[in-house]
């Protein structure tokens, strides 16, 4: 299946989507295809919105953002995110803000088919009074009070991985963040991969996603660029730095959008 088909068939306006990958294997090609197809009113979940959600926010795809750290890593701010929050441009953006530990455990709950996970987190912070979907919970085995976070079960989780085999199983290695949990938590799963291989070679700390978990698989070489894919290509940090300029003004962003997304086909 092509990426365009996968997005067209499986991402609907108004869906809750999670494009995961923690600094590594960020599914940029899929995110830009969502922009190209003008999907809208999405609730977008991601620990680190990163450039990918800055782009989707600027393009007006996202109505609500659920996240835990919203910067341009190593560079600075996400200007499209800020513009949406401050000026509702190009549309109003609602946010729901958590911690990495909280988001991770929300995916864990979703993956586990449970309504919530328990952690020690958010304690003493102002997030407690400003964030939904968290609640205190008492241990039934003593007096300790802990924090419960509500499960996340995205309509669609999208990740990028290195390889698929001929039977549509997928292997990924390197930093995976909360991707595994986001996949298990989702109702539908789209995975883009660098390439199809005959056989998976062993890697330290690799994870295999059996085809049973995958709704649609698309080959998308360099689909994580300008983030990186361990074993394939490195992070293109110039792009991250350049994004600061590109995204600062609406006009330069719109020019980028036209030139780099709408004028180009699926990567």
């Amino acid at each position: 299946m092509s990426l365009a088909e996968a997005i067209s068939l499986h991402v609907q306006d108004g869906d809750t989507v999670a494009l995961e990958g923690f600094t590594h294997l960020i599914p940029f090609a899929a995110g830009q295809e969502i922009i190209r197809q003008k999907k809208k009113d999405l609730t977008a979940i991601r620990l680190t919105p990163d450039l990918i959600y800055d782009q989707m926010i600027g393009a007006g795809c996202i109505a609500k953002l659920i996240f835990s750290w919203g910067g341009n890593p190593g560079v600075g701010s996400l200007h499209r995110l800020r513009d949406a929050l401050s000026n509702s441009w190009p549309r109003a953006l609602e946010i729901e803000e958590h911690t990495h530990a909280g988001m991770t455990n929300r995916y864990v709950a979703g993956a586990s088919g449970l309504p919530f996970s328990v952690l020690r987190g958010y304690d003493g912070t102002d997030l407690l009074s400003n964030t939904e979907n968290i609640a205190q919970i008492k241990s039934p085995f003593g007096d300790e009070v802990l924090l419960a976070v509500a499960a996340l079960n995205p309509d669609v989780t999208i990740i990028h991985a290195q390889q698929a085999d001929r039977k549509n199983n997928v292997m990924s290695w390197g930093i995976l963040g909360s991707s595994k949990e986001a996949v298990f938590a989702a109702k539908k799963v789209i995975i883009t991969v660098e390439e199809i291989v005959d056989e998976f070679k062993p890697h330290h700390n690799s994870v295999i996603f059996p085809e049973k978990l995958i709704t649609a698989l698309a080959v998308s070489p360099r689909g994580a660029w300008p983030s990186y894919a361990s074993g394939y290509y490195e992070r293109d940090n110039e792009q991250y730095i350049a994004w600061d300029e590109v995204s600062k003004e609406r006009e330069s962003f719109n020019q980028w959008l036209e030139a780099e997304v709408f004028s180009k086909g699926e990567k």
Partner: protein
Amino acid sequence: MSSELKWNSTEMMTIAASRILQNEMICFVGIGIPSTAAILAKSMHAPELFLVYESGTVNTNPQKLPLSIGDGELANRALSVVGMPEIFNYWLQPGRIDMGFLGAAQIDKFANINTTIIGSDYKNPKVRLPGAGGAPEISGACKEVVVILKHSPRAFVEKIDFITSLGFGSGPGSRKAAGLIGGGPSAVITDLGVLKPDPESCELTLVQIHPGVTVEEVKENTSWDLKVASSVTVTGEPTQVELEKVRLLVASSRN
């Protein structure tokens, strides 16, 4: 700062932070100056420093500065790479980490940290900052936390606009009341000196100034009436080796 110094204030801050790290510590590191300090320490006095990054890299040994918290350099040079549930639930949450490094946009006298918003209205802030990331739980669960940020009246404020990570709350007992198991901030390292919490009151106290810095200068850059220890020490000057290594590291991130 006097202009005849052979280093800049960021280099001094980084070197001061690296010296606080002890060999064999398990250290939870963030990107930027904490990484530089940790990598420097590993190449100097603490070769067995055990670095954990929230992205999942366990006992990593980066040779150049990671560009992001999940840089390939961290993964390729790690003993192992695990998922974030394992990092947050199995490593951080039970109190296994000796020291956590945090940055801050604002900090108050009890070392409470804000990295969320500037302004009084959460829904409509003056400036939107990146947010919490791993910080609240790092601050909560590490045996000790070291905060690194530049000194300025805008950063060292009487009241922070949002508590992103709890330091000592409103003083002794606050951490326990909030349910935190870790010891809290043990030092705040800035480009001017080092503050440590008073053992009784938990209030940050200036205990050390960097070479060429005056106590007055630190007080001027702190919005509250900063407590000063009865004897303030002066940080040892950066050695030639420290400076060379820091500069090499910083240069490495530009490649």
